[in-house]
């Protein structure tokens, strides 16, 4: 590695303005070796644009983008020696078989030892002799995963990596990410799947409209997570009374159930419910999806910066 003390991935003040509010603005991120950073955000928020800067596909208008101390645009070949990339779109050469495509990528990389490639193909049960064009989306994604991981890179950029994979293969993929983290690789994982982020990542960064609006550790995320409650009122009249008390329209139809998300103060809820005729209250932990939903919807972040 170029500089062992510096973060493996370092972005400071990255700006790329495509006009009409599109692009990324003053994005700053750091990922250390042996760390997995989850990159969350709605479609078009700027995740892939940020990834493209790491890959040296596009030049930053402002700020610095470095991988292992090398400028990602100027020193592209130096950066890519250490980098494994899984693009968001599965765009392998469709006319080739998986084996010939992987051999081509390994050959271009100067990778002589193909044992890891075969090992990963076995883990993901990939038929190396099948033509990529005839593969399902999931199998094409497996080819992309093997391509990204086969050189045991120091830095991994994974854009929607489990897209199209079945649950078993998603599990194996998460095991692979954990293995790479333990080996010391720095991983930036862009995903829409909250469970995947929750399981794989040490930290999470949320990007919206091209700006990173929240960065926190998964421990902080867990402490921020409230609980969700399902309250079943004794009758519709009671539920309507609840809705009116919270400034909502009275209940329509026969539904007696209210879903409450992100409840932090359970005592206050119990006190309030004591004045209603309640048939049943069940509770569950708030999902990451619920936790971040307000960011997706465009509210100001309630988490810490």
């Amino acid at each position, binding site marked *: 590695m170029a500089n062992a003390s510096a973060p493996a991935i370092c972005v400071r003040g990255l700006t790329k303005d495509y006009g009409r509010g599109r692009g990324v603005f003053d994005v700053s991120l750091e990922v250390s070796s042996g760390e997995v950073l989850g990159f969350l955000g709605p479609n078009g928020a700027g995740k892939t644009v940020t990834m*493209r800067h790491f890959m040296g*596909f*596009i030049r930053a208008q402002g700020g610095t983008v470095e991988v292992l101390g090398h400028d990602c645009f100027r020193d592209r070949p130096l950066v890519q020696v250490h980098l494994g990339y899984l693009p968001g779109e599965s*765009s392998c*050469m469709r006319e080739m078989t998986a084996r010939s495509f992987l*051999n081509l990528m390994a050959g*271009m990389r100067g990778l002589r030892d193909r044992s890891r490639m075969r090992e990963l193909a076995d883990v993901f049960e990939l038929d190396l002799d099948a033509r990529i064009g005839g593969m399902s989306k999931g199998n094409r994604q497996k080819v992309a995963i093997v391509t990204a991981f086969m050189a045991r890179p120091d830095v991994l950029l994974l854009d929607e990596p489990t897209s199209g994979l079945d649950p078993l293969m998603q599990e194996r993929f998460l095991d692979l990410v954990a293995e790479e983290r333990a080996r010391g690789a720095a991983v930036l994982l862009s995903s829409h799947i909250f469970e995947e982020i929750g399981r794989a990542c040490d930290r999470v960064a949320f990007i919206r409209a091209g700006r990173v609006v929240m960065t926190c550790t998964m421990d902080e995320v867990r402490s921020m997570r409230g609980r969700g409650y399902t309250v079943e009122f004794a009758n519709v009249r009671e539920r309507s009374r609840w809705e009116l008390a919270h400034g909502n329209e009275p209940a329509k139809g026969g539904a007696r159930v209210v879903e409450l998300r992100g409840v932090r103060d359970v005592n206050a809820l119990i006190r309030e419910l004591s004045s209603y005729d309640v048939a049943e209250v069940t509770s569950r932990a708030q999902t990451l999806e619920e936790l971040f939903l307000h960011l997706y919807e465009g509210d100001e972040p309630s988490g810490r910066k």
Partner: protein
Amino acid sequence: MILPLFRHELRSCLFPTFIIAAVAILYAGVIVGMYDPALGESLALMRDAMPELFAAFGMADQGTTLLEFMVNYLYGFLLVALPLVLVAVLSSRLVARHIERGSISYLLAQPVGRTRLMLSQASVLVFCLVLLVAVLTAFELACAQALFPGELDASDLVAVNAATFCLWLFLSGMCWAGACALPNVSAARWAGVALCTLFVLAQMLSGVGDELSWIGDVTPLALFDPLGIASGSMGALAGAAALGVSGAVLFALGTIAFERRDLSV
């Protein structure tokens, strides 16, 4: 050059090269076979009946030797248009298609550098053109030797074909520069070939009448003078060299543009 990529791309480019080579040598065989004084007279009759049409396709004069006959009937149009189709297909296949399909992201993700990547792709295109000119030259010589022994001066034919190769390099450079530099994939695929087609059409138009002859002189194709090459004219040699150098410069400019451009793939 990136050898694994070169081998892979060459395999995918050999088929269109083979097709164009087959068509070119078929025409070459027919034209050499037509070098018959009796048939020549009937051709002259046809030419007299339709002088503008023959002139448009660069066939205004039959010539007195086999080489002149070949130059008039082959090198004025067919050996410009057919290779233009090939370079359009190959530059699209080697650059534009990778960008359109997104597979360029995998090529760019390897630690080879954009310049080396593009030089490797360009070398596939140039190799295919070398293959085409070599096959064509060998076939023309063999065909002429079989049908009209001693009629064709081999060194003159090689010189004409070397100049033709310089013209092909120029056409390739035009298509390559467009494919590498233009951000819109359709424009990248068609801009170079459209411009080259315009040059060819201008050449054809200039042969139709004296009042339009100036059009041909303002296109770069005017630098291609195969008969002048055969007769050892310095001007024709310089013209061919200028075409070859321009082609190389266009390749370099395209590669530099590709090195610097943003690629949203």
